[in-house]
């Protein structure tokens, strides 16, 4: 089986995604495309801004982990037909508002008392604003929002209104994923309470124990108000169910049905993925090495994605 795109001499460029699950998926797909389909592959680093821009302009072809409806630029490109989205490489992603487990249950081993024992849902937050006090303005709590410009930032800002938390919590922009992550890790290491937005699958959620706060069940009408900046009286709702897809440039999509078929079949089950992510984060294993390990230990998963001849080539390249 061969690829029309690669046979005509085009390099196949993957976006380097910059978080563990994305890096892992990219490494897996890259390896198969290269060794199974004989493509000339490349993974290009860049911020989401740069890579999303390049995707729309055919500077890159493949973006292995796109969250549908969670990035404005991407939505625009999809709507304009410049990016096609296929498959479901990960099923069962999650997002929401989290607090470390020790804030609710305490941690005797570290001598941490439960500071918010009755915290279960977002409705309880107002009561505990002093626990999450904002150092810049201690009369309110601090909610660590997701990086500026992401769709989740807007949703969370609207949710603060919907949950009537604007008087008791400051909406704190963390700027980037890295600084959000660092702030959380720092709080955990020091045993301090912290309230934040996060998503899964991620090493952070896989590594530490967190409690996800309950939200009203998903409701499309309310969700629409959450995505409208101008709406000052939104109603509460969990975010829409998560759909993770492979994004590809439309030109590539049109040119190469074979590879499109491959990409749309890729799927790594969460229970396999989770430990890999922690491993990548903790012991700093390179994504490519991780991919090889995955090929060796879980042939039953990836062999379903490709025709036998391709599978054989990949298998033989592993030796």
């Amino acid at each position, binding site marked *: 089986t061969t690829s029309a795109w690669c046979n005509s001499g085009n390099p196949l460029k993957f976006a380097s995604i910059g978080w563990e699950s994305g890096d892992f998926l990219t490494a897996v797909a890259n390896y198969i495309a290269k060794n199974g389909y004989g493509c000339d592959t490349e993974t290009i680093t860049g911020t989401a*801004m740069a890579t999303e821009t390049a995707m729309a302009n055919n500077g890159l072809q493949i973006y292995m982990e796109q969250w549908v409806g969670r990035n404005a630029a991407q939505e625009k490109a999809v709507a304009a037909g410049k990016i096609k989205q296929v498959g479901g490489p990960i099923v069962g992603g999650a997002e929401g508002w989290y607090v470390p487990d020790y804030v609710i249950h305490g941690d005797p081993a570290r001598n941490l008392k439960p500071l918010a024992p009755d915290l279960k849902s977002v409705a309880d937050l107002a009561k505990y604003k002093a626990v999450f006090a904002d150092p810049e303005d201690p009369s309110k709590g601090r909610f660590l929002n997701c990086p500026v410009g992401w769709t989740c930032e807007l949703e969370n800002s609207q949710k603060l209104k919907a949950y009537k938390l604007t008087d008791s919590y400051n909406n704190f922009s*963390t700027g980037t994923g890295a600084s959000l992550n660092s702030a959380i890790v720092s709080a955990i290491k020091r045993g301090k309470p912290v309230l934040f937005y996060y998503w899964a699958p991620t090493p952070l959620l896989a590594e530490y124990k967190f409690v996800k706060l309950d939200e009203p069940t998903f409701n499309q009408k309310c969700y629409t108000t959450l995505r409208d900046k101008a709406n000052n009286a939104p109603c509460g709702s969990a975010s829409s169910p998560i759909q993770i897809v492979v994004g590809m440039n439309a030109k590539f999509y049109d040119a190469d049905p074979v590879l499109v078929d491959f990409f749309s079949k890729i799927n790594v089950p969460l229970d396999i993925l989770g430990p890999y992510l922690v491993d990548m984060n903790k012991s700093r294993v390179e994504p490519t090495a991780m991919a090889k390990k995955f090929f060796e230990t879980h042939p039953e998963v990836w062999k379903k994605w490709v025709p036998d001849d391709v599978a054989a080539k990949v298998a033989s390249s592993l030796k």
Partner: protein
Amino acid sequence: MFPTNLTFSMVAPVNDFVDGIVTNYGDFFHAMAHSVMMVLVFIEKTLQKTPWWLFIGIVAALAFVSLRKISQVALVVLGLMLIGSFGLWDKMMQTTALVVVATFLTVMIGIPIGIIVSCSERVRKIVLPILDIMQTMPVFVYLIPVLMLFGLGKVPAVFATVIYAVSPLIRLTNLGIRQVNPEVVEAAIAFGANRWQLMLGVQLPLAMPSIMAGINQTNMMALAMVVVSSMIGANGLGIDVLEGINNQNIGLGLQAGIAIVILAIIIDRVSQGFGADKRSN
């Protein structure tokens, strides 16, 4: 390619080391950062509470004292009005608080160090590589540990800005002082100038053009750091730039960018005016 048998890695030990510090001393550093943060918050709140016309008035007055030209003052006022009419007034105030504090600290640190460096060849040899490190070590490398130690937001932003912006000021102060005509210095010494008098009365005034170029660079670099500051949770104009990036909203980013540029030019012109040679004839 470099032979692989010669390679080693410092990744793991460094990570462990940082982890250890955050776990064991994180609270201490957070407490330290808190007082600095309170100062910053206070300035920001004061600026934000100032009515916009009063703020423009004060800046215009400053500009007049410094530049002595009505046309320039008018441009300053127009610039501020433009930022306001972009709807960026509040964010501008946050950025101003940050930048003014960072620039102030930088000047307070940079000029004395520049002076010390100019006085001794040995000190210069030690300080120069440190400056190189401060200026080229990518902010993000040390920013994550700093963030973990000091908390999100303003404090690490000021910290990073000062580290990044102080280097050209030190260098140019040093250069300026070293370029002062030795005959003039000799004359001052001959009349019994002590170190202090020599520095304040002769070397610094004659080095002023270089030092002002250093302060200009400090201003520029401090404002160039506004976006980085927002990446680590400092409010202000940088947030709009980030939002513009992440949403491919070029207009939004450009608006904030223009506001940053206007702020830079105003701060620069006013400070340069104060340092300029006021010789009338």
